[in-house]
């Protein structure tokens, strides 16, 4: 070391370990974009939620009044219960169905890419288009599905019967999103190394045991993602019931976002709508957090 030039240490620091903070400038664009796209709008909503806004120039600070009002609003309660029921229903159908579809896709072969493209098609269609397709498809007077079901002797009319509107929405969501679960599960299945199957075969495991003990544990990761995505997405559902029946018949398919839109855009109750939005956002956050921590904590025991 003694033979090295004296300025060696200094030169090394300068050339290999820059100690200035200019790199933060590189982060600045992201900070700005996130601020404008998320933080500032969110804070605006929080700001609205504690004010009573009468017109552009007149507003009063009301504290948590709107939060209290929203949480005690029976129509909010109803929409909330409907929302939870809807999310659970689609999750209970889409997750097992998605896994079943994924198990049915051949892992290798000429057909596999075609099947995957076919499955991905619904995912590429915008929400309102899906809703319009089903709105027409299920119409009892001209829609293929509606006319067909009625021809079977079942009086089916989603505009009049709440259960029918529900079933139509669930069917629509399952049609639209099961592919996502199936594709995720398929990716998970193809990632299982072959020796796991060979070992199970040699051990004499049954098909069910192979699924339960080999495949399901290894699908855990992708299924957690699938459930989280579908939970968040279905909790935010808006376009489909809006296009199909506008939240009707009655309030049968008025979910949280539908109710919120009525408040904010329909009645211009900006303060209550803002409080509602914040509560809504916190609920989604809470659900995902509860789900995720319960899954992760089970891992650690």
């Amino acid at each position, binding site marked *: 070391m003694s033979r090295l030039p004296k300025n060696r240490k200094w030169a090394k620091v300068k050339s290999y370990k820059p100690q200035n903070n200019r790199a933060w400038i590189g982060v600045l664009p992201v900070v700005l974009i996130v601020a404008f796209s998320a933080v500032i709008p969110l804070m605006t909503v929080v700001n609205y939620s504690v004010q009573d806004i009468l017109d552009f120039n007149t507003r009063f600070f009301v504290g948590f009044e709107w939060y209290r009002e929203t949480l005690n609003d029976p129509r909010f309660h109803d929409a909330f219960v409907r929302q939870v029921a809807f999310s659970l229903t689609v999750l209970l159908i889409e997750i097992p169905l998605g896994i079943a579809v994924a198990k049915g896709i051949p892992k290798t072969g000429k057909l596999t890419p075609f099947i995957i493209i076919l499955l991905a098609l619904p995912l590429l269609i915008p929400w309102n288009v899906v809703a319009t397709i089903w709105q027409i498809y299920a119409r009892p007077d001209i829609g293929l599905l509606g006319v067909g079901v009625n021809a079977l002797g079942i009086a089916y009319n989603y505009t009049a019967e709440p259960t029918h509107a529900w079933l139509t929405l669930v069917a629509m969501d399952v049609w639209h999103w099961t592919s996502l679960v199936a594709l995720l599960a398929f990716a998970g299945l193809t990632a299982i*190394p072959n*020796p*796991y199957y*060979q*070992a199970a*075969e*040699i*051990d*004499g*495991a*049954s098909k069910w*045991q192979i699924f339960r*003990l*080999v495949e*399901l*544990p*290894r699908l855990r990761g992708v299924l957690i993602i699938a459930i989280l995505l579908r939970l968040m997405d279905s909790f935010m559902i808006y376009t489909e019931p809006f296009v199909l029946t506008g939240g009707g018949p009655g309030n049968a398919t008025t979910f949280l976002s539908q109710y919120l839109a009525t408040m904010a855009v329909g009645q211009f109750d900006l303060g209550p709508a803002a409080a509602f939005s914040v509560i809504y956002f916190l609920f989604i956050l809470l659900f995902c957090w509860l789900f995720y921590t319960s899954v992760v904590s089970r891992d650690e025991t």
Partner: protein
Amino acid sequence: MAQITLENIGFRYPGASEDTLSGLSLDIAHGEAHALLGASGAGKTTLLNLLSGLFAPTTGKLLFDRADVSQLVGRERNVAQVFQFPVLYESLNVAENLAFPLRTRGAGKAEITGRVDYICKQLDISNLRDRKANTLSLFEKQLVAVGKALVRDNVSLILLDEPLTAVEPKIKWRLRQTLRKVQEDTGVTMIYVTHDQTEALTFADRVSVLTAGGILQTGTPAEIYQSPGHEFVGHFVGSPGMNFVPNSAIGVTTGERLGFRPEWAIIDDDGPLKGVVTRTRVQGTRESEPYGLVTLATDFGELSVRASTDVQVGTNTALRVNRYVAFAEKQKVGESEVL
């Protein structure tokens, strides 16, 4: 336990233009520990998959106790296998994993407990019994995987596919000893596939050297080492492998080429194989002298000899061969001591 017979086995992957294995015949006795030794691409894994029932042979027959099992699938063949990396049911605990192969075959509760206890004791894993498989270290997992293969005492055959690849060198030896001990205790037939000659030679009763889809030689580790039946075996087994020289180099008339192990020659300035010392490698001591490998550059290429390393690089000296194996067209045609 069973006697395993391979009769002229051939295998070609669907769509391939060449056989991966061809004309393979081998007899493995009851309770024998047999090693299949070969470099990558020699067909070891294919042969293993044929034995485990993943593939059926394209030609030839596979017999377990003289019964043809060629067309049976894995679960009907009554075999067990340990893979290169540990394969366990990760959501089950260790005891449940060990019990699984017994349970699927409808074993009684007492039998299951007895066998699991025995395996836990043999492999010294009783302290892991209640741990979930996915919380174990790689080595512990592989140990449990070995236990899972050994747990059924009525299997025809246990296949080990380079089971020590995932295990750190320090514990390799211990696990191999354990395997060997349980094998001797239970007298189960084992086939051990490896590319590591040390593993093969120390583990097995007999070793088969595989290359390019065929068996070059089957014999005890000593036979494989002392009198390789083919030049490749001599070259592949041993570290370093055999030295080869034309027979005229030391005035022998048998065969075409002679092979000799580094310890079958000595350094002797008057020896017939003249050369220059190019490097020495100390591997230990003998009579408090550094001892190891001395490499000479000769007219016949580099030759290595085990000797005192107390020679200077660049020295002109020569080798005298004491024992050789003669080969003609790569096949062994004789062996002899030189007087």
